[in-house]
């Protein structure tokens, strides 16, 4: 086995996006919801991931500054939650439930089919950056197992034979439903 040495001199600098001013403003919009700034961290991480596609190092440092905590506090939290990606993920994340109800209804075959159709394994991303694949524990839709989520959209009672069609469908992550204008976390003003 070859020994791989770290070469800090020639290593390319980590490039990850900064928080834009509107994004920072959005995060500040959550300050008055909680008695501490740190509590804004998880909402902020959601907003960052929505905006950047993942939570990069620079974003972690900058959100730390914004919330007056240390970057290691931020990393401590980020690393705990499976929802946050610290490197770029696909535009769409396919989440296959693997818990007991779905498993007994054939979730493993659905997952295998996802791997085949996408050509990637668990927690990998297609080379064109379109899709990432993840397995998840119970998605609370066991009555409709096996379940597959594509970003926000839940696909229910999925047969292995359906997988190709679901993945080829451009609208497979579209949730057409009323949404709150407060989704961005603008300040709530109540009389």
């Amino acid at each position, binding site marked *: 086995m070859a020994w791989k040495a770290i070469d800090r001199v020639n290593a390319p600098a980590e490039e990850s996006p900064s928080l834009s001013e509107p994004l920072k403003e959005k995060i500040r919009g959550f300050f008055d919801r909680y008695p501490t700034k740190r509590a804004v961290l998880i909402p902020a991480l959601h907003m960052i991931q929505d905006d950047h596609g993942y939570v990069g190092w620079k974003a972690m440092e900058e959100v730390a500054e914004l919330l007056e905590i240390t970057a290691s506090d931020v990393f401590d939290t980020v690393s705990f939650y499976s929802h946050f990606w610290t490197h770029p993920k696909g535009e769409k994340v396919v989440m296959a439930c693997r818990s*007991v*109800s779905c498993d007994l209804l054939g979730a493993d075959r659905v997952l295998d089919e996802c791997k085949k159709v996408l050509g990637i394994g668990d927690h990998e991303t297609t080379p064109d950056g379109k899709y990432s694949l993840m397995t998840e524990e119970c998605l609370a839709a066991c009555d409709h197992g096996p379940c597959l989520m594509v970003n926000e959209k839940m696909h229910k009672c999925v047969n292995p034979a359906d997988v190709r069609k679901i993945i080829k469908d451009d609208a497979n992550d579209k949730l057409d439903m009323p949404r709150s204008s407060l989704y961005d976390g603008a300040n709530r003003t109540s009389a």
Partner: protein
Amino acid sequence: MSDYETVLLKNVGKPNSQRLATYVEGGGYSGAKRALEHTPDDVIDVVKRANLRGRGGAGFPAGVKWSFLPKDREVTYLCVNADESEPPTFSNRVLMEEDPHQLLEGILIAGYATQATVAYLYMRAEFAEQYHIMQVALDEAYEAGYFGKNILGSGYNLECYIHRGAGAYVCGEETGLIESLEGKRGWPRIKPPFPAIQGAFGKPTVVNNVETLANLPHIVNRGADWFLGIGPEGSSGPKLFCISGAVNKPGCYEGAMDFSVRELIESDRFGGGMRDGLKVKAVMPGGISMGILTADELDMKMDFADPAKYGLLGLGTASAIVVDDQTDIRKVLRNVARFFSHESCGQCTQCREGTSWMYKMSNRVERGLGRMEDIELLGEIPAKMGMMPGLSICGLSDGAAFAIRTIVEKFRSELEGYVRSENDDAVRIALEIAN
């Protein structure tokens, strides 16, 4: 099984059941109005008398929990537990999807009773559709003056925010939830102090499940005696049951806690019988953490008291997964063991190491590489973990222990049979893998 008037799910299937107008038309928010005309202590009193036991898994009486709050507090937080991650549970999802205002009314009543200043609705990240539904409903409720300052002219103020989680089962444990709310990893806290004394942001805090709170408008409107009149003593009130697996009608159903697991599976009101002529092999009737029943134990009542008689941890989330007779029990064992080893937060040695050992062994057994010692150990480790022997911080490890111990105890001969029959081959395969 008694005749039953649907309460919690009565708006399901109504057109626009998610809209405020629909809810109000059906008498919605009258419970909150009534509560606001009484003192907070009156509300606590009626909930105590109704003996509303928590629907989140532990069954602790809500009114009693509220009365632990210190009298001289200035700030109180209400955390609504919508983390719903226990396989195979989805009743909170149905409540939020179909009737968001019923939950919001419940939050308002619980908030008023506990004199909460802020309510946080903690929803698991994977609830996307449900999040949009709840947020739109919450906006409507604010608009109509059910949240914010001086609610309905009562002088009571309550802000309500939705806080989205980020994918961790243990954040459903109440102190894990609080840590997560504070922006930290969802590591459960050592108790005491209990949340009622020192919870979110160091202040007195109440954590209640979605279904628990959805009961409140009805209790306030119809009284404690009405509630006590539903179901057996100690297990009163409307209750949601989930059923999934090899049945004809998997879904979320409502009833009193007065029927058996067999009825849950067979009755046309619920599961509608087994699919494709399959037979029952096993049922996990309360979520996987509570443990398993064999086909001979289906007389267990779906109430708070009976599960213990069958060696289970409790009623849990009253969500049953039905395993059919064509299923290899090793598949269930491995799946359940994987779940807990994946979800253990790692703070307590017995839970962290115990769950991953158990997963490794179940994995071996499932792949035909098991040894008799594995089965022995799988029965033994669970006795050495959990809060019950005082060895862990939270109940996740008790769930792991009950799930795995009951599977190994109740299906021991099947597991041993596999190990015995596959042993020679197993050694050969193991050697092939090792080389």
